[in-house]
């Protein structure tokens, strides 16, 4: 049965740019996985554009810049990875706190930010890096550096996903 109200059918101007941009045939094939629907276009796609569509997102989250490396964007990946790694390392060097638990709302937000660092966070927790409590002023800066590094890593991972789906060139 045909839906009565299709987005944009009555008011075409209300269709968001992202909906129009993502609804291309190429992106549909990419979202479904190129292995699932092998067509004439999939053969002409580069190796980096084949396979699991969310792989750059996951790899980019786990390893800063990894999503871009997977897509052979070497320069962008190196700059993103280097920046995020440097911010995280500076945060640890400033004796920043790594959030371990969620005791109140601020701790939950801090933990969410820290988790954005992916493997860096887990390795640091296992290695015992970072302070348990903020004791000096620079440690407060360091805590923010670590949280922001995680948030920037999430942005970078989403960017890799957008490159993979063709939303960004």
């Amino acid at each position, binding site marked *: 049965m045909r839906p009565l109200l299709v987005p944009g059918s009555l008011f075409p101007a209300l269709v968001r740019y992202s909906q129009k941009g993502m609804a291309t045939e190429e992106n549909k094939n990419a979202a479904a996985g190129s292995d699932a629907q092998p067509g004439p276009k999939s053969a002409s796609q580069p190796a980096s554009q084949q396979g699991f569509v969310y792989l750059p997102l996951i790899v980019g989250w786990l390893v800063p810049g990894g999503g871009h490396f997977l897509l052979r964007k070497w320069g962008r990946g190196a700059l993103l990875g280097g*920046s*995020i790694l440097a*911010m995280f390392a*500076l945060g640890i060097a*400033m004796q920043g706190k790594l959030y371990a638990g969620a005791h109140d709302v601020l701790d939950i937000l801090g933990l969410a930010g820290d988790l954005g660092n992916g493997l860096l966070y887990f390795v640091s927790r296992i290695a015992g890096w970072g302070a348990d409590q903020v004791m000096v002023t*620079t440690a407060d*800066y360091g805590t923010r550096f670590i949280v922001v590094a995680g948030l920037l890593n999430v*942005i970078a991972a989403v*960017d890799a996903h957008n490159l993979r789906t063709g939303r960004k060139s």
Partner: protein
Amino acid sequence: MTHFAAVVLFAFFASIVFGITQRETPRRMIRYGIYCFVLFVASAIALSWIMFLIAR
């Protein structure tokens, strides 16, 4: 490390990520990165002066 040095480092690395992720061509990435860096540092200095004047 001074507070200002931390601000500059923070602005530098955050601007690189913003520039690469928010723009498409290399030229526009660089321009947007510089724009973000200047905005970060300038707003930090302006806010510092405001807080200094309020605290007096």
